[in-house]
């Protein structure tokens, strides 16, 4: 006879009590496994969703690279058929000075623009005469670039086209970003420039060029202020084009035939236009990709928050289930020891120690825990195939690492729940039991 045999024979004798205790423990372990499965499935779904979104972002980036290349090729091809812009400067103007200062120091008659417009020129679409100077705004103590413009000069032999640049009305000025920002000026304000009063017609937004320190006004008022009546220092010819390969050479030849001695240079190259177009497209794509990445990050944060909430809910539920189970197991042990009072009394009378009695009761509690945990794990394994679909492909095998922990901790919890009633039973006075019996 030994403790193990005594435990087994008692379990076989009181099957219902043992089965009830095992079922209680199994319920707790089932709740634990269910929580582990639900959280595992949640994590798996999150990973799947994030993988899908990351793959979509990768696809977008790949598409963007491919589309950008295609777009650049397209722009390059299109630009071949588009016009370009040239500046016409007065005769005798040194171009290195223009490159250095940004405008011509020499002037030419304003009528040159009219002459050009009235000629049979075919390579130019828009003509913009201007007078540009860098000077100090005496009232504001600021160095500015002053540009007088009169709007487009209509080309006589063509149908009127929509002007590319609007003229500035007399008595009004347009200010670059840096000027109106630093001087605190707004559209509609009045200001004095070189002794004359002007209303601010428009305030440009930031361009990051010399335009930010430029004042535009009507050409005639500019000529008066600078003492250059009827004079201009540049004509901007926009959307110039022709069919030949050497398009700039052809335009120069045509202009030279009409305005001999003038200097013609190209501005704002096609490459620049292409780069701008490419940058715009890139910016759009990057914005879309950034939005997608942001969406992915938000999804990740949402899923993590959801998981945390679920984890908190499940933990509370699990704690309650385990607590109730432990109380119920303790009650069952208490009930079992009441049924075994006589047995415990006579065993004590025979000289069997309190420790051995406790070992008998705790051994049974250990087996309750082990059987409950084992039963649930076996059921979980049997059901894993059927549950796989509804768990987003979550594999129960991924929880195998927890099996030893469950198989050790659940019997330990069962023993903990049984400890007090078992201790009380083992220490019960055998004389009282035997006398009462």
């Amino acid at each position, binding site marked *: *006879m*030994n*403790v193990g*045999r*005594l435990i087994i*024979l*008692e379990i*076989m*004798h*009181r099957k219902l009590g043992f089965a009830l205790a095992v079922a209680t423990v199994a319920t707790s372990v089932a709740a634990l496994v269910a929580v582990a499965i639900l959280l595992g499935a949640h994590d798996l779904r999150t990973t799947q969703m994030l993988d899908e979104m990351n793959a979509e972002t990768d696809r977008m980036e790949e598409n963007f690279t491919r589309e950008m290349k295609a777009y650049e090729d397209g722009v390059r091809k299109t630009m071949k058929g588009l016009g370009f812009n040239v500046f016409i400067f007065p005769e005798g103007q040194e171009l290195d000075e223009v490159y250095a200062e940004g405008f011509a120091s020499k002037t030419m008659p304003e009528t040159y623009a009219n002459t050009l417009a009235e000629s049979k020129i075919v390579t130019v679409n828009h003509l913009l005469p201007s007078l540009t100077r860098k000077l100090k705004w005496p009232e504001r103590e600021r160095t500015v670039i002053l540009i007088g413009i009169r709007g487009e000069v209509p080309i006589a032999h063509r149908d009127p086209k929509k002007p590319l640049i609007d003229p500035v009305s007399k008595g009004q000025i347009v200010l670059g970003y840096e000027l109106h920002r630093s001087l605190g000026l707004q559209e509609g304000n009045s200001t004095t420039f070189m002794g004359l009063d002007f209303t601010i017609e428009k305030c440009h937004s930031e361009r990051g060029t010399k335009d930010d320190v430029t004042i535009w006004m009507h050409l005639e008022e500019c000529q008066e202020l600078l003492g250059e009546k009827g004079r201009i220092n540049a004509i901007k010819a926009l959307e110039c084009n022709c069919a030949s390969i050497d398009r700039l050479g052809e335009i120069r030849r045509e202009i030279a035939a009409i305005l001999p001695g003038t200097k013609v240079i190209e501005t704002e190259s096609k490459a620049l236009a292409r780069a701008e177009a490419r940058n715009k497209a890139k910016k759009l794509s990057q914005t879309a990709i950034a939005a997608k990445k942001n969406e992915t990050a938000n999804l990740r944060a949402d899923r993590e928050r959801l998981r945390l909430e679920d984890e908190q809910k499940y933990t509370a539920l699990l704690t309650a289930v385990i607590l109730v189970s432990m109380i119920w197991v303790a009650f069952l042990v208490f009930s079992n020891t009441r049924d075994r009072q*006589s*047995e415990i*009394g*006579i*065993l*004590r*009378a*025979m*000289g*069997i*120690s*309190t420790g*051995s009695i406790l070992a008998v009761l705790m051994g049974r509690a250990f087996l309750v825990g082990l059987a409950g945990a084992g039963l649930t794990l076996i059921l979980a394994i049997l059901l894993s195939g059927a549950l796989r679909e509804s768990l987003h492909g979550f594999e129960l095998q991924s929880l195998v690492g927890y099996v030893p922990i469950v198989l050790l901790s659940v019997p330990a919890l069962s023993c903990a729940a049984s400890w007090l009633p078992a201790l009380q039973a083992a220490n019960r006075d*055998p*004389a009282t039991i*035997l*006398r009462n*019996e």
Partner: protein
Amino acid sequence: MSELTLRIANTSKSYAGPEGSTVEAVREVNLDLAPGEFMSLGGPSGCGKSSVLLIAGGLLRPDEGEVEILGNNLYRQKGAQRAAIRAKYLGFVFQQFHLVPYLGALDNILAPSLAQPLPDATERAMDLLEQFGLSDRRGHLPSALSVGEQQRVALARALLTKPKLLLADEPTGNLDPENAEGILERLATFAGEGGSVLMVTHDKRAAERATRSIRMEKGRIPIAQ
């Protein structure tokens, strides 16, 4: 003179009664039991004889006095040592048998080996089964045994460890005369083989089988006995 199996000296025991009162169950009891002696302890219900038996068995600490089993002062020992003395020297038989309900006859007889491992426990248990005419009942649960068989199993269990002292509390109280006679015969045989028996009973016929009979009254044993 050989050593006494049991010596109870000036032993008293009181219980808390209703409404704060005290019930004096045992009053200055003195009792010696020598090897080979079969003593019956009689008296009316509530006279304290069962309390004396439990005190003698190391299960009920007296308020006063001393109890010795083969020279070992029981209540000067710690609980574990007292349990060891019980396992080594004592055997109990009760009116209610107190068999373990889920153990068969053989396993019930073997139960004391939980406290004191015996090298030949199974052989001895089988031998006892045969002596008590229970060989064909070895696997039967107590619920499948007659009351006479149950008491025989209880007595066989008490004898497994070859105790020096058998403490029997109304061992024939639930038995028919035939079975009662069988049990008394076994107790007498045990005493005849050098063991000591202290039997609590109010059955006159049972008391007549003892070598010495003592009657208790109101917790006391009159000196003349």
